[in-house]
């Protein structure tokens, strides 16, 4: 039931790009993306709804392919502040459960 994210961890230099993938075994209604700093609550980045959405927020964007039950988060020209653990959250078509992915640890170094 828990979505699977890849990669598990990535290290970037400032200015480099990264892609984080989220894959579910169930049909999805929506996909959320969150970033969590150590010891803090997750912070909302964006939500994508069923219908093949793409969204962007400054240099962070995401896509949602509900046929493949997958979403990808794109970080371009990464900044030090992007460091943290990124989680996708998924809501299925059939229930009220909201599952988080396994997480991707992203570290941006100077």
């Amino acid at each position: 039931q828990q979505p699977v994210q890849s990669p598990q961890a990535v290290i970037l230099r400032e200015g480099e790009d990264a892609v984080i993938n989220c894959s579910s075994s169930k049909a999805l209604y929506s996909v959320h993306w969150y970033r969590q700093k150590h010891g803090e609550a997750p912070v909302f980045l964006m939500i994508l709804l069923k219908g093949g959405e793409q969204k962007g927020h400054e240099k962070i964007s995401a896509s949602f392919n509900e046929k493949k039950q997958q979403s990808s988060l794109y970080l371009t020209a990464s900044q030090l502040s992007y460091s943290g653990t990124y989680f996708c959250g998924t809501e299925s078509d059939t229930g009220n459960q909201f599952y988080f992915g396994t997480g991707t640890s992203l570290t941006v170094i100077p």
Partner: protein
Amino acid sequence: SQTIHQWPATLVQPVGSPLSLECTVEGTSNPNLYWYRQAAGRGLQLLFYSVGIGQISSEVPQNLSASRPQDRQFILSSKKLLLSDSGFYLCACSSDGTLNTEAFFGQGTRLTVV
């Protein structure tokens, strides 16, 4: 907008002792409520969710339980804590029972069972 109050922020409890973590929500009515646990270096595991007063669904068998005595109150409990119960516990809500908008989180409770 919604606000979630979760307390305490940190807790150290001996093995075998009881647990009660409380979460209250402001700014919305009839939310879906969730309890998650995050073990060190691991993802967020859904423990319980609730779509209404007295309605609790459990995702994993464990010695924890949850209750929702009021619309905007969600309580996580245990009668006897285990060492494996240590972790970071997060309460979350979605407004009006949908997830068309973001999920809101409390600030978390770091539980250490010793």
